[in-house]
């Protein structure tokens, strides 16, 4: 039942071990059972930010797909104009945006598709793809210069 790899530094995420008495195979689940996304009342969830929500272990927010990635986007705050293009087109809800500001990338949910880099309008781009093994600081120091428009 392993759908996620073990990623260092994500102790809050990843496939959490359910208690031995709760662990049932997919073919042993009783019909009509529901998986609750949240612990307790979920009535006003739409007005709560992700960090204020009480996610249940069944919510895929607690899981990670970081092992899918071979290239990763790196975010450069200095160039970003907070246009939120990357936020609206990210297929994996991995762009963290709060109060009209882009804060960064959720590397637990990002699959490295590269859509955010393609839709970034700045020059040079404020998001670029680097190899998964590259360190973010090193990537930021090697950021390209502004390109002049070709006439």
């Amino acid at each position: 039942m392993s759908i996620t790899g073990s990623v260092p530094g994500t102790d809050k995420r990843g496939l959490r071990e359910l208690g031995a008495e709760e662990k049932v195979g997919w073919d042993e689940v009783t019909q009509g059972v529901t998986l609750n996304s949240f612990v307790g009342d979920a009535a006003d969830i739409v007005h709560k930010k992700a960090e204020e929500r009480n996610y249940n272990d069944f919510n895929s927010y607690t899981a990670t797909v970081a092992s899918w990635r071979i290239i990763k986007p790196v975010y450069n705050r200095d160039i970003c104009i907070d246009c939120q293009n990357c936020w609206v087109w990210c297929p994996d809800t991995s762009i963290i945006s709060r109060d009209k500001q882009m804060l960064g990338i959720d590397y637990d949910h990002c699959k490295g598709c590269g859509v955010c880099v393609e839709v970034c309008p700045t020059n040079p781009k404020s998001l670029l793809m680097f190899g998964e093994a590259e360190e973010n600081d090193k990537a930021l120091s090697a950021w390209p210069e502004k390109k002049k428009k070709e006439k």
Partner: protein
Amino acid sequence: MAITSIKNLKEFSTNNDRFEGAHLLCPGCAHSMIVRELMNCTDDNLVIASNTGCLEVSTAVYPYTSWDTSWIHIGFENAATAASCAESMYKARKNKGTLKDPDAPVKFVAFGGDGSTYDIGFQWLSGAMERGHDFTYICLDNENYANTGGQRSSATPVGANTSTAQAGSHSYGKKQKKKDMVAIMAAHGAPYVAQLAPNKWKSMAKGFQKALETEGPCFINTVSACTTEWKFDPKDTINVTDLATDTLMFPIYEIIDGHELNILYRPKNILKVEDYLGAQGRYRHLFKPENKHVIERIQKDIDEKWEFLQRREEARI
């Protein structure tokens, strides 16, 4: 009515996502862009029904669910039925006074792929539209059965290479025209029918809000570029969708009450269809000299359709 502001992207981005990451859709899949946008454009409680398809198998892999709303998975054909039944039950319980919170606004939405909308769930969808339930059906049209290996569906366009309509020495891929689902749904007399694309996020969010606000059955066909079966690089999802709308392969328009047609996006430069076809591996064979007539046919179909839409818009009948 709690509709969120979509004046600009910055305001739109203050919404809290209700579609969580770590679902198992392919990297760069447009399905999740469309679903996220629908769930972000309203504050109301949502009851969502999903047909079997890519979206359903990837967002509810035991023991995880990616949905922060009520979500029902049902057979390949029944999302429209499930949504309409949930809506009927909601109304009945409201009348009886047995709801916990009768004033909370609830919207009913059904998601289906093109296989379950155009082919397998067609009869059920037609029935739900005819009965006039207050729900919104959204078709995520990726033009094939992508979940099962890319078989042809009746949404597959002419000339596409699919695993059951293969291109080769004796065939140029699918020979039949794509079914015009938007026109069929408009002919049901549905109050709001539209074809939208994720690259034009504002017209899409507006369309979704309009559909959720409208009482009665609404149908929205959305273009969902499929990186796996259309065979392009995952990063190019939005670029390919841009080409689709700019070549008018997917014109963006709405039909209100079955007759009032509005074109929502007019490209400044209408591109030739070769640009769209050339960006995808599934059309590669069309660029052989013996298949030139297929491209000409596709371009002719597009021009005729665009002419038809423009004249329908002018006529207002």
